[in-house]
């Protein structure tokens, strides 16, 4: 055998080896290419983006879309080979029956799950419709406790319900008052006429007298109300230590402004799910009227960088970082986590994954998720106060970014 022969043979072997290796790599690579483009998972985002709930509905949609955007940008759903999330947008037009119709369309377009629907009335209709098809439905806002616990196994609510919120609000108010040396003894409640205003007022009226407060007056007003002069004049004559408003954004702002114009300055303004009390929009537009207002509301854990990062992103888009935005954002991320756990876009598997979920990667002050009858057990509100043109968390201590200023200074 000549050297030349050997070299030829070696050369051949080398080529053969290379060829085999290349084809093997090719075989391995082919599925990887296929895996890089797995079918997108369709997610229904159903909100009232038109009609009288349009502002809140649009905020929810923005939050949910931002979540999908960031999930897709960071590699999609890993358990599904990096599958992207594809939003299927729905508009409930602020009406339950249109919300139900949108669920039908989403079902036919093959959504794996639905996130929505901001209002309690719409969520009641959409969860029920989605249940017919076994579509997992995460309720992003909707505080009515009737939404969960009526036997719909597809329905999950991440945020706290109304009962828990008012209970915590009252307990925190008592604690806050005691810590300040009990400056507040008399209370006036001003509330709007629908579910949350009426319900809040009823609970407060029942609970506060047992905790050492005297309820001087409960005033109910219609939606919309465009003049609070009479109510504030009454407030002036009663001179309560504490004013508790329970109303939507516009009325809240108007009430606070009228109080300031009339020179009514109680020791504190403390609201439960206050329409404007923990809204950056209110603080930016009317900083003097908003100053020192306290609220017990949906809020993010201010210690989590992700929450602040999202705030920057939202504000960079020219939007306000309201509770609708971050609740819908985290609801979508909860769903993405369930998809990871399920390892499938199958509706039943997602429902199972949600029901047994113990996700703690979110930035809400809830701890790991644990769903009982569809309600996340750790969900709770935080107490905030408008201080120095910002909204600070004042209670409970472990989340607090500032000390409460109560009673508020008499300017």
């Amino acid at each position: 055998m000549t050297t030349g022969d050997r070299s030829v043979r070696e050369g051949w072997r080398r080529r053969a080896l290379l060829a085999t290796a290349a084809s093997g790599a090719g075989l391995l690579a082919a599925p990887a290419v296929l895996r890089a483009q797995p079918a997108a998972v369709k997610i229904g985002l159903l909100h009232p983006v038109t009609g009288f709930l349009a502002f809140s509905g649009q905020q929810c949609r923005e939050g949910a879309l931002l979540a999908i955007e960031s999930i897709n940008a960071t590699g999609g759903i890993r358990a599904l080979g990096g599958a992207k999330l594809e939003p299927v947008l729905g508009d409930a037009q602020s009406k339950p029956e249109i919300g139900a119709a949108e669920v039908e369309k989403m079902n036919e377009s093959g959504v794996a799950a639905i996130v929505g629907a901001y209002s309690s009335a719409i969520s009641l209709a959409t969860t029920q419709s989605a249940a017919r098809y076994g579509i997992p439905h995460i309720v992003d806002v909707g505080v009515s406790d009737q939404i969960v616990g009526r036997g719909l196994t597809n329905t999950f609510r991440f945020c706290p319900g109304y009962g828990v919120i008012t209970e915590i609000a009252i307990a925190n108010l008592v604690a806050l008052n005691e810590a300040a040396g009990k400056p507040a003894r008399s209370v006036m409640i001003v509330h709007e006429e629908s579910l949350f205003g009426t319900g809040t007022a009823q609970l407060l009226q029942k609970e506060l007298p047992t905790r050492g407060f005297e309820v001087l007056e409960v005033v109910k007003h219609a939606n919309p109300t465009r003049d609070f002069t009479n109510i504030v004049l009454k407030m002036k004559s009663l001179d309560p230590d504490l004013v508790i408003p329970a109303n939507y954004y516009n009325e809240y702002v108007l009430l606070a402004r009228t109080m300031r114009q009339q020179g009514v300055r109680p020791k504190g303004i403390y609201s439960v799910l206050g329409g404007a009390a923990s809204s950056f929009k209110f603080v930016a537009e009317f900083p003097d009227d908003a100053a020192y207002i306290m609220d017990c509301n949906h809020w993010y854990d201010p210690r989590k960088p992700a929450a602040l990062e999202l705030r920057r992103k939202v504000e960079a888009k020219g939007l306000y970082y309201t509770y609708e935005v971050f609740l819908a954002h985290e609801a979508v991320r909860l769903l993405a986590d369930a998809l990871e756990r399920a390892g499938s876009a199958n509706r039943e598997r997602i429902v199972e994954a949600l029901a047994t979920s113990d996700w703690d990667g979110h930035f809400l002050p809830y701890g790991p998720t644990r769903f009982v009858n569809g309600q996340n057990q750790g969900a709770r509100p935080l107490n905030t106060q408008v201080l120095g043109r910002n909204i600070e968390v004042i209670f409970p201590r472990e989340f607090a970014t500032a000390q409460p200023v109560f009673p508020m200074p008499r300017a």
Partner: protein
Amino acid sequence: MNPAQGERAALVFLVLAAPLPWLVDSGTLVHFGIMVFQAATLGQAWNILGGMGGQFSFGHAAFFGAGAYTTAILQLRFGVDAWSGFFAAILAGAVVALVIGLASFRFGLRGSYFALVTLAFAEVLRILANTLEITGAGVGLLLPLAPGLERLQFADRRGYYLLALFLCAASLLVARAVAGSRLGARLVAVRENEEAASALGVDPFAVKMRAILLSGAMAASVGAFYVQYFLYLDPHIAFGPQVSVEALLGPIVGGPGTVAGPLAGAFLLQLLGEASRALAGGATGANLVVYGIVLILIVRFLPGGLAGLARARAERAGAGS
């Protein structure tokens, strides 16, 4: 197309629509059908009083809501079964109609005054429902989800489809019977000229009372159906102005005073709602703009509604031949 042909077309439409959910497997279609039949029945209720009798009501939500709340309260608070609740709801609609009728027709209220009184009644009922404990105040009422024929809840949505279709067909037959009856002729007489009708021996008060009782009972049946379908009710859903507007929009677009008008109008409006959403695409609210523009065009160019258009075509064809 003359009115008789229109009626036949409407009945044929309903007969043909009945098996549709079994032929086409689409939840969207079933829901669409339910919404059309519901709007058509409510529109027909308005049509008997407003279209045939010329008594324009802006407050049909009063009847719709009364029916809805009656069956919901009876089931939730008194343990009454859903079927009895349904019939009690129809009765409640008639009772509210009796009160509104007595309070307005007795005192000779007509035209815009009658419209305002009906509007005020619906608003008063909305505020009452928002305040009273029995109606759940602002919190509303939620029926437990428990499918079963005896509870008038259907696990299969097609059950609701058939029920809505049945109500729509019944309302159409009632309207047809009224139109062909002495009551119908008297209603038209009162609509065209109350004094002249009176001079001819027609008792306008009695005629209008009969019409409003019938109308109220029919509208209440739609309210009761709504509760069975969505299982949730609050004061805005039951007595809100959008219900009253839906009640009058269908017949006005379809052809007020005609038997087939409310169904044609309801179908067109629901179709327009869906089409405008598809046309507007992702632009938020653009669908409502499209909807509004088409509505303005219909009212501007078809004052007699779809029925008017059909009549005009028939007349042109008649003149041409």
